[in-house]
């Protein structure tokens, strides 16, 4: 990879995406071994700088770094000087002064990784910024699709839910369209911005129509705070109209797979029997996330060489 940072899928070429996925395949083999650790990035330091609560992404990055023999520092906001009024840039520069090679950042404001990337020598990895992107999630989703389906090009992938506020959806839209899949967005008009069709996706407000003959269904998490803001009247009504049930799942292709970035709200965006059913690859996504994040760290480290 030629870039210093992983800011988003938007910024990646098809070649770079494929390189990450191919590299991840190698690391997945490593993760299947008895000894799951390789010395590839020994002596490096990664800092998890999480301004939003996260368990799975932070843990996944931490473990990915450790599997590569990189030291990891978890810098969480409540214990940092951020609460004392330190600016974001000052916090990041302080972390860099400690010798960090990677700054893995999650923040509720879009563009924060881009801001840090400009002021830091370290590689900045976007672990989710506001409503912008969550690139490693999309990479692990693509990796999972490729693993299950053998390809991505030509597939039809439905993304169901709160596209408007979802960085996972945005990153997946960029990844899928770049890799040659057809993306369909399904949800109420309040959660799917009208102009998004310009990105080369199809929009369906009716889930039954949208799910017809799709190869992959990605269900997005409905954030509970959207309730009462006029996006939809209640989670019950949402589930009734856009929840993924087994009846609806039967509209998709027979060999369709069901994905979810987690954490799930069972009975809101997805029925329990679907989440736990044979078409669900939700836990595989978690495992693949490790391999993909190892690949990202490994490839970004190459820049410094």
């Amino acid at each position, binding site marked *: 990879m030629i870039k210093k940072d992983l800011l988003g899928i*938007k910024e990646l070429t098809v070649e770079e995406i494929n390189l990450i996925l191919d590299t991840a395949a190698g690391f997945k083999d490593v993760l299947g071994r008895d000894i799951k650790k390789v010395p590839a990035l020994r002596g490096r330091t990664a800092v998890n700088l999480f301004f939003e609560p996260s368990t799975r992404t932070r843990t996944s990055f931490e473990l990915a770094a450790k599997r590569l023999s990189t030291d990891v520092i978890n810098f969480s906001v409540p214990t940092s000087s951020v609460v004392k009024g330190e*600016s*974001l*840039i000052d916090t990041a520069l302080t972390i860099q002064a400690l010798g960090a090679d990677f700054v893995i950042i999650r*923040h*509720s*404001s*879009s*563009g*924060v990784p*881009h*801001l840090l990337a400009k002021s830091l020598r370290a590689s900045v990895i976007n672990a989710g*910024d*506001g*409503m*912008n*992107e969550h690139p490693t999630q999309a990479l692990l989703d693509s990796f999972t699709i490729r693993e299950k389906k053998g390809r991505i090009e030509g597939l039809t992938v439905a993304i169901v839910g709160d596209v*408007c506020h979802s*960085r996972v959806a*945005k990153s997946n839209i960029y990844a899928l369209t770049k890799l040659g899949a057809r993306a369909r967005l399904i949800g109420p008009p309040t959660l799917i*911005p009208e*102009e*998004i069709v*310009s*990105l080369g996706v199809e929009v369906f407000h009716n889930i039954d129509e949208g799910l017809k003959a799709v190869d992959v269904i990605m269900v997005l998490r409905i954030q509970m705070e959207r309730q009462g803001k006029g996006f939809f009247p209640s989670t019950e009504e949402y589930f009734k109209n856009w929840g993924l049930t087994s009846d609806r799942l039967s509209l998709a292709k027979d060999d369709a797979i069901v994905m979810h970035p987690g954490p799930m709200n069972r009975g809101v965006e997805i029925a329990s029997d679907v989440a736990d059913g044979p078409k669900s690859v939700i836990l595989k996504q978690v495992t693949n996330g490790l391999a993909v994040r190892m690949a990202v760290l490994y490839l970004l480290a190459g820049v410094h060489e």
Partner: protein
Amino acid sequence: MKILIKNGHIIDPSQQIDGIGDVLIEEEKIKGVRSQKQNELRTQNSELRTIDAKGMFVIPGLIDMHTHLREPGLEYKETIKTGTLAAVKGGFTTVCCMPNTNPVNDHASVTEFILKRASEEGYCSVFPIGAITKGQKGEELAEIGTMKDAGCVAFSDDGRPVMNSLLMRRALEYSKIFGVPIISHCEDTNLSEGGVMNEGLLSTTLGLKGMPDVAEEVMVARDIALAELTGGRLHIAHVSTEGSVRLIRDAKERGINITAETCPHYFSITEDAVKGYNTNAKVNPPLRTKKDVEAIKKGLKDGTIDIIATDHAPHRIDEKLREFDFAPSGISGLETALSLSLRLVEEGVLTASQMVEKMSLNPARILGSLITHHLSLVAGSKGTLKPGADADVVIVDTIKEFKVEAEKFVSKGKNTPFDGWMLKGIPIITISMGRMYEWQ
């Protein structure tokens, strides 16, 4: 002191002058303007400074109806001293300062403070704009009459629009007896809630919360309806959308007594300037799209938009060097406004005379009734080169090309999306109340 500006291209729409001639200034007033065919301007004083303005525009000093001077309370962003220095550097000899200071200019004592400071430290004339409501809270009217007597020339809650339609109605009704305009920052804050840029494909792909153009337009429509109902004097601040231009044009055609302004950034750049999370392009109302820019230009050309104001909104550099969501809105605009407006002349959108109208004569007209009584100035003393008017004159080198260098701004606010731009045309001499400032 006497100043004779010779052989300049005088543009004074108040007298329909657009040609070569001389301007004579004595002390704080314009003594006379002579076009080439008339007799020599006579002056006996030996203490005469002669300026050769051959090839330059000589225009009445610009009047900015929308400036944030930040004093009192926010002196780290700007002071009356630095803000008025930026003004004269940009060719402005009068600025009207918005009330969102700390404390808010919602009381005659604050107005008096600003005027006192301006008379002690200011480089140009300062006319304060008072708050419509106490504390800009949108709850109860401020003492509009008393503040007018103290020197406020207009009233506005600026960045905190009066959401309560009844209160806005009362403001438009009540202000009528004082003949002062109510300046409306048109934004339905429910529709724009949390927004940090224009709503559209770009806000979606940047993951930033958008403010739809209709958030501005529904308020423009409301305020036009209220102006029609009350007969109050409504001035619409910083028009940024195609729909607003259309609404204002329709209202004017129906004979409703309203005026409107836009700012250079709304006719010079689009939301694309936000790409890369450039906080210097964060402004409220937000930068819009190409079709809006075209509509704004058309509105300027056909007279729908009366005024070009700056909405000069200086911020300290580290306030902008942060998360886009949390960076304050605003552009430091005084030092680029004239050069950016000259682009409209170059493009043929406006004639030079129309540009001067929108940056000097029209603001003077809108604020005219106030200027009459305020600080014992005489009627029509600004925005014109008529004999007896204030000696507010700007000499503009319209050929000179220069690079915008934000760090060299004399304003404390270096926040501009035009940093590094090559522009053509710049004031080289600004005379404000007879005091001369030279820049080159």
